[in-house]
């Protein structure tokens, strides 16, 4: 499989938009205070959660780059470190050729996973505030706001309160806000969560326009189809580490056509070895209780599997192979695996 496991996929001639080297970060979280403590002082205990653990990654300039991993794998933490809002406990970060700083943030657009809008501001006021924070003013700012509202289809709502917008409209407004200062690097944290397919397509159309004008896009997501469809390169992140990096085609290169997910808690190891040797069977991965395998033809594989398993199989899922299967093959865990989530 043509997968670069050493995180140096970017051709040496292309300057990286973002580079992280041996990056680590741990959250020191406090437990909730217990009720009724007579002292009035909250009883708290510290625990540390390792969000990133020696991550090394290069994001080529001008790319649409996907960070694919389950919730809690460290994707959002990485974005916050790229922006410089958190400091790593170890390792180095460079964004647009420099360490993160306030000046660098002026060249970055950031779309948070959750809605980040003041419901009591109008759309125009929202963009105006953002433009002023990014040093825009006067006629230029007014014109840019009008153009952006037009381009995201919200021009007729410019003076409406944000609270009157639908979820999809709010996302479009946030996209306009991200694009307002013409960022060179756009960071997207689960940007299409909760959007319907039309809204998702419209959002991506506008993002691709920005990419074509030179902006690098880093997408943190656990949506396989989104990374597969829109990203030129994808990095698999698992428990704060880079598991693999490459183009979607490279990452999927070793997969057979059909993916079969089998819930089989008591799979005998010898039988697993036997199945792996069947003709038309690709890499077989066992992560209790799931057996994952890609095959040339599920229609031939599945009846044979049931015959061999007798009554040991509890559930089975069949579909065309995707990046999720590549992820499972490489990482040995599903994208919905949240063990170790932060």
């Amino acid at each position: 499989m043509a997968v670069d496991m050493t995180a140096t996929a970017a051709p040496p001639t292309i300057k990286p938009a973002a580079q992280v080297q041996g990056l680590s970060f741990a959250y020191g979280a406090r437990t909730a205070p217990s009720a009724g403590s007579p002292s009035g002082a909250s009883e708290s205990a510290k625990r540390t959660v390792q969000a990133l653990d020696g991550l090394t990654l290069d994001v080529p300039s001008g790319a649409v780059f996907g960070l694919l991993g389950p919730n809690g794998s460290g994707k959002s933490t990485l974005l916050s470190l790229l922006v410089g809002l958190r400091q790593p406990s170890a390792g180095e970060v460079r964004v647009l050729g420099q360490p993160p700083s306030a000046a660098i943030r002026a060249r970055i657009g950031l779309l948070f996973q959750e809605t980040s809008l003041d419901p009591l501001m109008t759309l125009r006021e929202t963009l105006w505030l953002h433009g002023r924070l990014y040093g825009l003013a006067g006629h230029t700012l007014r014109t840019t706001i009008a153009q952006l509202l037009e381009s995201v289809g919200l021009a007729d709502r410019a003076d409406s309160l944000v609270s009157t917008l639908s979820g999809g409209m709010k996302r479009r407004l946030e996209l306009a806000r991200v694009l307002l200062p013409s960022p060179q690097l756009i960071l997207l944290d689960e940007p299409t969560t909760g959007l319907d397919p039309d809204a998702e397509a419209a959002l991506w159309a506008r993002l691709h326009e920005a990419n074509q004008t030179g902006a690098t896009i880093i997408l943190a997501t656990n949506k396989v189809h989104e990374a597969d469809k829109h990203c030129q390169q994808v990095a698999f992140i698992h428990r704060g580490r880079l598991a693999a990096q490459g183009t979607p085609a490279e990452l999927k290169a070793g997969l057979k056509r059909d993916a079969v997910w089998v819930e089989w808690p008591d799979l005998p190891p010898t039988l697993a070895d036997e199945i792996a040797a069947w003709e038309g069977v690709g890499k077989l991965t066992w992560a209790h209780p799931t057996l994952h395998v890609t095959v040339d033809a599920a229609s031939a594989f599945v009846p044979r599997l049931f015959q061999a398993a007798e009554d040991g199989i509890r559930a089975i899922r069949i579909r065309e192979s995707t990046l999720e299967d590549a992820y499972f093959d490489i990482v040995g865990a599903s994208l919905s695996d949240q063990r170790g989530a932060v």
Partner: protein
Amino acid sequence: MSALAACGALLQRDVRAVLRSRSQLYSTILLPLMLLAILGTGVSQGLDPTLVRDGDYATFLVPGMIAMAVLFSSTFSSASYYRDRDSGLMRVMLASPHSPRVILLGKALAGVSIGGLQALAVLAVAAAIPAIDLEWQHGVIPGIALAAIGIALLALLLNGFAQVVASRIRTMQGFHLVMNLVLFPLLFFSGAFFPLEDLPAWLKVLATANPLSYGVDLLRVAIYDDGSGYFGLPLDFAVLTALAFALFAWGLQRHPGYHW
């Protein structure tokens, strides 16, 4: 599930929430008790209409009401930190090309400006009421200027304090309760409601230790009194200026907290 069981579950949940929110639990009990001690004593022993100029208690109250306007405005302005945090706008602002202190400074200056303008509006309305007889011993324009300086210093002080509290209290309800617990007593023994001169010694000590007293005293000298005030203008200015800038600067040191 019966309606009774549902109500019981909701009751249990809300009681737990109050028990976990210690600021709410204690301030709800402490505030009435403190007011009972302070306001009760003040009214019983200090409030005699003949002790204020011409027995005109309404006019006497004006400086205190101006201070109260600044106090409430500062509290409400600082509560916007919670609105910005909960709406997510705070993280957008913190991700902008500015340090958290710049963001805090902008918001704090907004609080100071709003509080100052609201207090001046109270002064303007009070001055326009025929029954209110302000003295303006230094003249109207110098008096307004003096009052404006006092209001600005009070607003700086109270916004700084509110920012310090807001950075430590997780919920807006808790913030309001702590502010009420601290600020209402400060207001009541600041000389806003009764003259300090005839209070018992223990209340005089508390009034002297109360920063708000110096603001009320300054405002009273500016617009109401024909004397030099309880503390005197130099002390009023010295205490207010030192505390206002110290608390405002302290408030700006408090990181609003980053939530992604």
